């Protein structure tokens, strides 16, 4: 599990961008969606999540705004920018390439066993 979560953590920004493709969202909602998609096997630490948000915002991939909830505290929402969509496409391609390569490397090792 620890290797898997290290791997996943390396792609935090891509995962956030993927979540924002459909609709604007906020920190907890994104984290919850991740938990549900992985059947509670993975969730991000708040600190990791917000570090990724700040980095994405600084690079212009996402924008943030405060929601206008009438009840309770206000939430900070994030929305993906055109630049963010482009970045998402590139990151997805990179991941696919890496996956293919790693698959090949690992499969070759397997045949030796």
């Amino acid at each position, binding site marked *: 599990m620890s290797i898997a979560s290290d791997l996943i953590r390396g792609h935090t920004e891509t995962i956030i961008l993927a979540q924002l493709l459909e609709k604007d969202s*906020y*920190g*907890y909602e994104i*984290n*919850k969606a991740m938990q549900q998609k992985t059947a509670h096997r993975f*969730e991000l*630490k*708040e*600190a*990791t999540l*917000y*570090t990724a948000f*700040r980095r994405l915002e600084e690079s212009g991939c996402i924008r943030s705004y405060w929601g206008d909830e009438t009840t*309770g*505290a*206000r*939430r*900070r929402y994030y929305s993906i920018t055109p630049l963010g969509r482009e970045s998402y496409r590139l990151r997805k391609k990179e991941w696919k390439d890496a996956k293919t390569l790693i698959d090949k490397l690992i499969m070759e090792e397997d045949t030796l066993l």
Partner: protein
Amino acid sequence: MKEALRQYLDTLFVDAPETVRMLELKEEIFQNLTDKYDDLIAEGKSEQAAYDIAVVSIGDVRALIDAQAGGAANTKEREKARQRSALFVSIAVGLYILSIIPVVLMANPASVGIMFAMAAVATGLLIYNGATRPRYVKSDDTVVEEFKAWKEEKSGKKSGRGAFTGALWLAIVSIYLLLSFFTNAWYITWIIFPIGGAVSLVISGIFDLKQ
């Protein structure tokens, strides 16, 4: 229990500078923690269990706060630059004062040359100091920070012009002394001062026009 969450978050942010961005970050984390807490309660967890899970899920915010502050390292660097700047100015002022001594002691053309050289070095130091002074880096996007940056820039321009005027007048005095010692025409060499004054005004007029 939510109050306990708030208090726990306060302890994490106790060393953080109180900027708008930092408060927003804290508010955002608190809001998401409360959401999580509410969800856990709805799932049937006890208040204590929900609090524990929420607290553990925060993780290490140290790096996040540091990145958000950005200013912590910034202020240290500025302090260093300020000390260096003070050293340069002290040396320059010292040179200006000492530059008179050769003239007083020897009272010949060579001593004027030494004075000119010392003054040139001092002026060079001042100009270098003015040119390499670090710009004020905004630590966040509030109006206060913008005002500070603007003020810094304005005083930077002023000190640049001050150094130039100082250099000009030193040159004028040096030329006056050199000419006078060499030609011994003391009765007329003073004319360089009104001329110098006019030149200085013309140059600062050009400065203003350019801006």
